[in-house]
């Protein structure tokens, strides 16, 4: 049947071409990780002892608090909002449907900075309270709860987006069947809709938590020390990249184990759909409807409108002075890089998903897992791993064939870096759409005389489209916000908006960072809006 054969997965004796391609892709992602793992050849016991004696325990506890807190936060926000917009009717629903995704375009460190700017002791809220109420003293809000809230507000869109897509495909019929079988509306949600959406929600949660673990910018604004802080401390301040790489590979191991546990927890459950259904929304009573609107508005305000308004204020106040002709170059390059990387990453994610769906071979599983570990690494550390492996390739090519460096300083290297880092982001939504395609559907199509190509066009494509668009959007926005790899691997002249944000913030010029930050958000709005329109429920 050739390599495009569809339908039930085939057990392969030997890996075929596509499996080999998958293995190659996986090797590419694992190369920088392997370079970092090599760090264990060195003995950094001195640094380890220092960290263990002083800060390590606190860092691990802080990290656990953050992971659990943000995990609960993004689940509650993401699932509740996704459920509302996809199954209920309330005033403003069509607007919130796409607007609730917008916080995705706000970089975490921007929300962190704005939150402190407004809420801390010297900010407007506490200052006015002190004037109004003499007894009010106020104090520092740089506390764990605010870090958790901030990161939850920034990262819930991952869960929201994937859960929303899942709820929409479920359709009303599933809920009706559950109700006919005697479940109340709440029981139907908890016992049918939610478990059916589990792969999507888990994929979103995994993305949000990996972002949380890898985050350095936002926690640095709060001076909240996490495991990632220790990684940077070892590299930047204790000047030991090796120890940093060891710490980073431990973090990665932790993530891998967690992902495997989640897989095992799903067990043999299957999550296939019966096809796309029309949605008939439930219409709650007037008071409840306005409560829903209020809830969605509050989230939209604090996660998006207020921070963007604050940025806008800075821009109008002073930062527009930086607006010159070079600025269009920044915007164009940001868009070019993000589009190129998003397309490349999603195509490769589709390949992974397809191979995993159609082939059973012991290597496939491992290869797919391997190809999607990049996201959990703190960006800078992964970027260094990529740079070290590229530089080694360049040096080898140079000494063996006398070539000038072709990887370092070229766009190819940067593209590969983006793919390595964001393949997991694209793979999550793509895989959860693949899971919804029942093999029986393909069998039926084939029995009815459809060619494999027709089966792809008429069954795979419609069912995969929402997942593919989601993946494109997520990678596009992630690449636009990406800093460390862009900084380290960009060719001369390829400055992006994120690079400009970095340069301003590193000099403490927060107000001047507002212009590139705001532009980043605005440029991110367009794809969010367009893609949400495409996937809007009928």
């Amino acid at each position, binding site marked *: 049947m050739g390599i495009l054969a569809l339908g039930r997965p085939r057990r392969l004796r030997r890996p075929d071409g596509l499996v080999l391609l998958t293995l190659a892709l996986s090797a590419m992602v694992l190369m920088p990780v392997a370079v970092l793992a090599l760090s264990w050849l060195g003995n950094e016991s001195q640094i380890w002892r220092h960290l263990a004696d002083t800060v390590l325990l606190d860092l691990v506890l802080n990290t656990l608090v953050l992971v659990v807190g943000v995990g609960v936060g993004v689940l509650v926000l993401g699932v509740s909002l996704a459920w509302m917009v996809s199954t209920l009717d309330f005033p403003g629903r069509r607007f919130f449907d796409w607007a609730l995704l917008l916080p995705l375009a706000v970089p975490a460190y921007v929300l962190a900075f704005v939150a402190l700017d407004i809420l801390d002791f010297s900010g407007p809220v506490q200052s006015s309270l002190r004037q109004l109420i003499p007894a009010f003293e106020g104090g520092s809000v740089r506390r764990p709860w605010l870090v958790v809230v901030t990161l939850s507000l920034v990262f819930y869109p991952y869960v929201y987006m994937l859960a929303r897509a899942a709820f929409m495909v479920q359709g009303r019929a599933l809920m009706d069947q559950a109700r006919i079988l005697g479940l109340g509306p709440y029981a139907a949600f908890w016992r049918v809709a939610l478990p059916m959406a589990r792969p999507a929600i888990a994929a979103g949660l995994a993305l949000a938590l990996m972002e949380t673990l890898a985050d350095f910018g936002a926690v640095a604004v709060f001076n909240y020390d996490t495991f990632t802080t220790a990684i940077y401390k070892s590299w930047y301040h204790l000047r030991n990249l090796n120890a940093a790489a060891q710490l980073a590979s431990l973090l990665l191991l932790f993530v891998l184990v967690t992902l495997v546990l989640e897989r095992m927890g799903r067990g043999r459950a299957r999550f296939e759909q019966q096809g796309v259904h029309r949605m008939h929304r439930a219409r709650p009573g007037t008071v409840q409807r306005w409560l829903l609107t209020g809830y969605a508005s509050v989230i939209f305000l604090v996660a998006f409108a207020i921070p963007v308004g604050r940025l806008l204020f800075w821009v109008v106040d002073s930062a527009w002075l930086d607006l010159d002709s070079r600025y269009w170059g920044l915007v164009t390059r940001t868009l070019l890089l993000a589009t190129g990387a998003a*397309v490349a990453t999603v195509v490769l994610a589709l390949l992974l998903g397809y191979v995993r769906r159609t082939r059973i071979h012991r290597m496939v599983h491992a290869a797919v897992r391997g190809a999607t570990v990049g996201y959990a690494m703190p960006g800078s550390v992964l970027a260094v791993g990529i740079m070290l492996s590229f530089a080694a390739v360049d040096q080898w090519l140079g000494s063996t064939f006398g070539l000038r460096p072709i990887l370092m*300083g070229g766009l190819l290297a940067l593209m590969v870096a983006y793919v390595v880092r964001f393949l997991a982001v694209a793979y999550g939504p793509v895989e959860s759409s693949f899971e919804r395609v029942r093999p029986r559907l393909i069998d039926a199509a084939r029995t009815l005389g459809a060619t494999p190509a027709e089966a792809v066009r008429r069954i795979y494509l419609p069912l995969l489209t929402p997942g593919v668009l989601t993946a494109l959007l997520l990678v596009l926005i992630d690449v636009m916000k990406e800093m460390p790899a862009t900084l380290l691997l960009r060719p001369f002249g390829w400055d992006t908006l994120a690079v400009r944000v970095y340069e*301003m913030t590193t000099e403490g010029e927060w107000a001047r960072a507002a212009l590139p930050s705001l532009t980043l958000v605005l440029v991110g709005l367009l794809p969010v809006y367009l893609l949400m329109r495409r996937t809007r429920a009928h």
Partner: protein
Amino acid sequence: MVCAGVKSAAVRVGRARLVTAAVATVLALLLSACGDQRRADEIIVYTSRADHLVKPVFDAYTAETGTRIRFITDNEAALITRLEAEGAGSPADMLITVDAGNLWLAADRGLLQSVSDERLESAVPANLRDPEGQWFGLTVRARTLVYSTERVQPDELSTYEALADDAWQDRLCLRTSKKVYNQSLVATMIERLGEAEAEQVVRGWIGNLATDVFANDNAVMEAIVAGQCDVGIVNTYYFGRMLRDRPELPIRLFWANQGDDESGVHVNISGAGLTRNAPNAEAAQDLLAWMAQPTAQRILADGNLEYPVNPDVVPHEQVAAWGSFRPDDLNVEIAGRRQVEAVKLMDRAGYR
């Protein structure tokens, strides 16, 4: 080779009419990366001093000499790691960083080369450059005390070390120990006082903190203005920027450690060195020497309200208005030499 391959792939794809806009974008990106040949006469700079602080100087040099300069900005640790990884094949001619500790590290890793140049040695004071000529200071950054004019009399202040006294209980604000400026300050304290005494001072600071340490110097000053604390330690150019926009703020600088037997104000540099394998070393050396001369010094220092390293150049009017001070005369390389000790000391003392 690779470039030709990409090109022919692009043509083939085009013929086959399979082109989607997306594939074309990716190929165009790869193509544009190729053919980016280095010109023989250009200078390539890796800099951790940001674009808006170095580009004006490079533009002025290009206007004056016609020499093209291309540069990449990034974090200093990343740039140093990149130089190391690229080895002999590195395109970079020059490394610019803030904080002498980073230049010391680059020199220590064998990434820089010694330069002996009269133009540099006469313009840069001996304690603000590497004794072996591997790097030279370009601007001076002073880190000193800032206080609330509403709650502190200047005669209550004296030294960094005195901020550990009980008098400042719950009145001190500090920036995080993760910023290299504080690591350098503590490194010089270790050099002068010895490790044990320096640790006592840092523990004293931590005991006197009015609130959690802040992520940046601006936040320290905002906290003093808002009344959360009374005194802090900041780099003067942050103070300058804040006062430029809001001159009415009730905070002032105090020059620390000015007594006869005291160390003087802690200073650090932003500076530059030539890379070990600089392909265009001669031109880069000319650029480096030029940056220490008055025209460039004006742009470098005034652009960020820092102090020129060249003693013949007077500071910006606003900077001069803060008065003059006696700087610490230790060689700034101490910041690099003792940085790891300083970081570990602050970890032990609970300075986050």
